[in-house]
């Protein structure tokens, strides 16, 4: 066994693993190719063959540049893990956009990148035009991206890896996942995928049966069930038709998707704990407590606010139009049972404000959901109570404060501080997004709604997101989705790495010239 870690540069390590993730994604394109073959969609098949070939060439080139990483079995450090995750997502955004561009349903490469990032980050905002005439293969690809993006592209690559890589945990954390279900990372990623695949089978079957009952044809019911499950479980929000969930006109279909996206927004650790028979975890966990409290308050306030304005005529309407949308926003799913403009025209400022708050809070940490997460909200809230209690207690008394998340954990200032920092980063991202929206002439409430939707990876729109939107806003929304999903650290590491590289180059060139 040879270990010559020092001989391999960071650049080679990053290049090798990024290439590996790209090759795994290229391999995934076989699924839409098979779909195109089955449904005799020849144009779509060629689009994916071209895209797969390009992705394979890029993957081999990147892995080839970093080939010595494999030969020397170089160790991955923390900085590598973060940069690999961020860089992989960026490279994949461009490569996965190729079939969109070739399909003719998109007006520019920027729009295609927007849709791919929206899928990867499980946001669900759409710039693809004429969704109703999209090929089954491209629909398969869109929903696959959102499903895989929910679990994580790097998580998928780690699952496929033949042997455990040293430093795999650093790659895993780089993608904003930190739960350890079993002692090794490969085992943990496999459990994450096993949980998702079991839910995929059960959820798709439930939606398929319901699809048949509501009048869809068998094959079409199956495809709709598969796509809607992938979207709901990953809290994505994509749908195969323009009308999103409203296409089905069905309370039962809406209810099933609602159960799926609530489950999808829960921590994988919680799913694993319940599967192991620890049912009390559902009640004791700080994240579920936080989620149920905030979603209950948000639903009640919105129902009360909108009923005062007589927006909906009865209780069933209130459930289907208000509760569904509020929970969809809170779990950062983005399925909408009202038209985008109805939020602006009918819900009023109060309804929009509640939606903005729940979109920013989001779902659970280490789940498919976005937002600044219930765990952090719970920790900051408990931290605040802890500080008040400390103020009121005698200075001599010392008490340890705890919170329950899978196991009892010590609540100290460093935990509260790190949670608060992430929340501040989200708020800054949201603030800038709102400011850009107002700069381009959109009303403040609409700008805030859309900015919260991209920052929290939600996908509900108030009507701003469209192909006609200014390019600067499209670029900012891509950055916001990307940073929000990777929870900042990886992207900061990538920016730092690139800036460091540029600085080194400048210093070298200055030395050379002098």
């Amino acid at each position, binding site marked *: 066994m040879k270990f010559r870690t020092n001989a391999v540069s960071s650049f080679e390590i990053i290049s090798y693993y990024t290439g590996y993730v790209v090759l795994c994604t290229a391999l995934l394109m076989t699924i839409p190719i098979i779909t195109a073959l089955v449904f005799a969609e020849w144009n779509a098949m060629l689009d994916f063959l071209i895209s797969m070939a390009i992705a394979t060439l890029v993957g081999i080139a990147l892995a080839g540049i970093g080939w010595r990483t494999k030969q020397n079995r170089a160790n991955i450090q923390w900085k590598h893990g973060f940069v690999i995750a961020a860089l992989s997502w960026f490279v994949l955004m461009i490569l996965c956009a190729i079939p969109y561009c070739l399909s003719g349903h998109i007006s520019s490469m920027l729009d295609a990148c927007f849709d791919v990032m929206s899928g990867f980050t499980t946001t669900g905002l759409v710039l693809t035009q004429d969704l*109703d005439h999209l090929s089954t293969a491209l629909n398969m690809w869109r929903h696959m991206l959102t499903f895989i993006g929910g679990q994580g592209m790097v998580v998928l690559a780690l699952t496929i890896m033949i042997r455990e890589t040293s430093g795999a945990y650093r790659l895993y954390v780089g993608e904003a996942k930190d739960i350890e279900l079993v002692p090794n990372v490969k085992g943990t990623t496999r459990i994450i995928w096993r949980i998702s695949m079991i839910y995929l089978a059960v959820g798709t079957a439930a939606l398929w049966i319901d699809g048949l009952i509501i009048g869809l044809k068998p094959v079409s019911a199956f495809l709709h069930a598969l796509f809607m499950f992938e979207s709901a479980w990953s809290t994505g929000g994509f749908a195969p*038709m323009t*009308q999103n969930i409203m296409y089905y006109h069905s309370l039962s279909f809406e209810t099933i998707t609602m159960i799926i996206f609530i489950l999808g927004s829960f921590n994988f650790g919680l799913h694993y704990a319940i599967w192991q028979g620890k049912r009390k975890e559902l009640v004791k966990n700080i994240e579920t407590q936080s989620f149920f409290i905030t979603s209950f308050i948000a639903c009640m306030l919105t129902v009360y606010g909108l009923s005062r304005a007589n927006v909906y005529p009865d209780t069933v309407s209130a459930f289907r139009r208000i509760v569904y949308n509020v929970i969809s926003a809170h779990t950062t799913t983005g399925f909408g*049972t009202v*038209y985008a403009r*109805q939020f602006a025209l009918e819900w009023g400022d109060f309804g929009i404000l509640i939606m903005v708050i729940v979109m920013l809070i989001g779902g659970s940490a280490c789940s498919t959901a976005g937002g600044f997460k219930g765990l952090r909200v719970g920790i900051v809230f408990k931290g605040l109570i802890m500080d008040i209690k400390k103020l009121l207690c005698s200075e001599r008394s010392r008490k340890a404060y705890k919170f329950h998340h899978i196991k009892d954990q010590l609540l100290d200032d460093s935990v509260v501080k790190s949670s608060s920092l992430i929340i501040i980063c989200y708020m800054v991202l949201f603030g800038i997004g709102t400011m850009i929206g107002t700069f381009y002439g959109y009303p403040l409430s609409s700008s805030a709604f859309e900015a919260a939707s991209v920052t929290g990876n939600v996908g509900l729109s108030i009507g701003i997101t469209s192909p006609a939107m200014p390019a600067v806003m499209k670029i900012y929304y891509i950055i916001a989705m990307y940073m929000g999903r990777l929870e900042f650290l990886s992207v900061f590491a990538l920016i730092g790495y690139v800036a460091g590289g540029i600085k080194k180059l400048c210093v070298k060139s200055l030395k050379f010239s002098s």
Partner: protein
Amino acid sequence: MRKIIKIFVLMFLLVISFSLNVFAAQRTDINSLIEHAKALDNKEVTVQGEAIGEMMNRGEYSWVNINDGTNAMGIWIKTAEAEQITSFGDYKHKGDTVKITGIFHRACVEHGGEADIHSETCEITVKGITISERIPSGKLIATVLLVPVAAILFFLYYKKSRKVTAEL
């Protein structure tokens, strides 16, 4: 005299063209329905668009979704009438263009607060067609060039990778 006849003819054409505009304005697009939902709530409207997806049979009545290019909306229509629509828009089909006159509901009580139209009359104005797929030659050439190169390189990479793994 010829001048007078010319003026009369021009006036006649103008009147005709204005009256045509009035007829066109009676048809509402779906985005306008949503934008002016409160004003048009429970009023009779006419929309025209392509039938998309498929008909969803719910007994005596069915759901048909139409897209007029501005947006899409559900039409609650008698099943017997809906069955006249034979082509629905998807990747391989351009759906029938249907003209629907019915009552628009901003938040329909019967359908859980949904914005929909309860159809009274349905007319197929343009029959749908099957879209024939034409493969651009550029796409075909790119596939023929890129796929074999990528496949050979991947095979070589995979072989080398296996060899290194075995050595380690």
